[in-house]
């Protein structure tokens, strides 16, 4: 065992040393879009570095790690072209249904106009339609109902001219309520379909 592993280990170390000698790397944590705390962990055979403040950065070269605080100016210089190519953030809409069935509320029918517009305007848009129910009825019945709602909306979008291959429909039943309730509670906010456009 020991004699088998040793050459392997030293080969791995040699490879890292070799790569470390010719490559240099920078990793920078960027501020998160929603302002929530976030972090990146940089791991190598020697250990790990935690970057957990905006612009916290690690420079790696020749087996050395340097942790430093980067800046918006450095990020722009080093990553400007990569960041400029970042796709638009996906947007999410929530549509509501009248109780027990497959009919959208008045407001939600109006919101469909904006959704269609966004699907048409985004480059190479794709759409995920996710159905949800309240907790009235069995889990199985709600799985079917949520899928039916999602597929109903998918069909509505196809009828209004959206290409079918852009659209996926899934049902999450009563698993993911917007407003947590006891079982068998009629909660209008949970009878919804989420449309995510990316």
């Amino acid at each position, binding site marked *: 065992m020991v004699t088998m592993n040793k050459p392997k280990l030293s080969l791995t170390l040699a490879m890292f040393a070799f790569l470390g000698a010719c490559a240099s*790397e920078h990793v920078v944590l960027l501020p998160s879009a929603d302002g929530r705390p976030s972090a990146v962990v*940089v791991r190598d055979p020697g250990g790990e570095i935690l970057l957990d403040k905006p612009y916290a950065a690690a420079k790696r070269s020749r087996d050395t790690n340097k942790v430093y605080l980067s800046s918006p100016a450095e990020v722009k210089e080093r*990553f400007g072209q990569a960041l400029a190519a970042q796709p638009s953030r996906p947007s999410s809409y929530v549509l509501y249904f009248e109780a027990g069935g497959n009919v959208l509320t008045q407001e939600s029918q109006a919101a469909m106009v904006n959704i269609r517009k966004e699907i048409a305007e985004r480059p190479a848009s794709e759409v995920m339609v996710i159905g949800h129910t309240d907790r009235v009825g069995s889990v199985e019945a709600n799985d079917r109902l949520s899928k039916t709602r999602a597929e109903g909306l998918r069909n509505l979008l196809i009828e209004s001219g959206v290409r079918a291959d852009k659209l996926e429909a899934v049902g999450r039943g009563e698993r993911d309520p917007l407003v947590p309730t006891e079982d068998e509670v009629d909660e209008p906010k949970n009878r919804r379909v989420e449309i995510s456009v990316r």
Partner: protein
Amino acid sequence: MIKSHWAALCSLLLLSAAPFAQAADPAGMVKVARGQDSIERDGKKLPAEVGSQVDVADRVRTGADGSVGVTLRDNTLLSAGPNSLIVFDKFAFDNTTQDGNMSIRIRKGTLSVASGKIAKRTPESVDFHTPTSVLGVRGTEFAVEVVGGNDE
């Protein structure tokens, strides 16, 4: 001895499984493309254009004037600057359960990442590999540069 036979067998299995994996597994779609960009798949070089699908096992390469932005199926946003090579080693995402995993390699160039639904639900199943390190994410936006990385 037995161990090394297993290792050889496993790598053979991996090699033979790869073509099937990539045929059936879309990972994302190109949403932004500037300059000369390409997708390398099955030894073929395809142009990377807005609307091109990116599959598991694809290699996305940008030219000296190129940059490319890809949105993955879990809403992860990836974008690469000029002279970059990004390899989509693993990606799986189940829309219904929202379970999944991804493993992406940056061989050279620059890559910016805004992580998506998989990283939110199971951050431990998302990793990014540079030539010398592994980056783990905790609900994150970050950027990586590799200078002097391997071209293959």
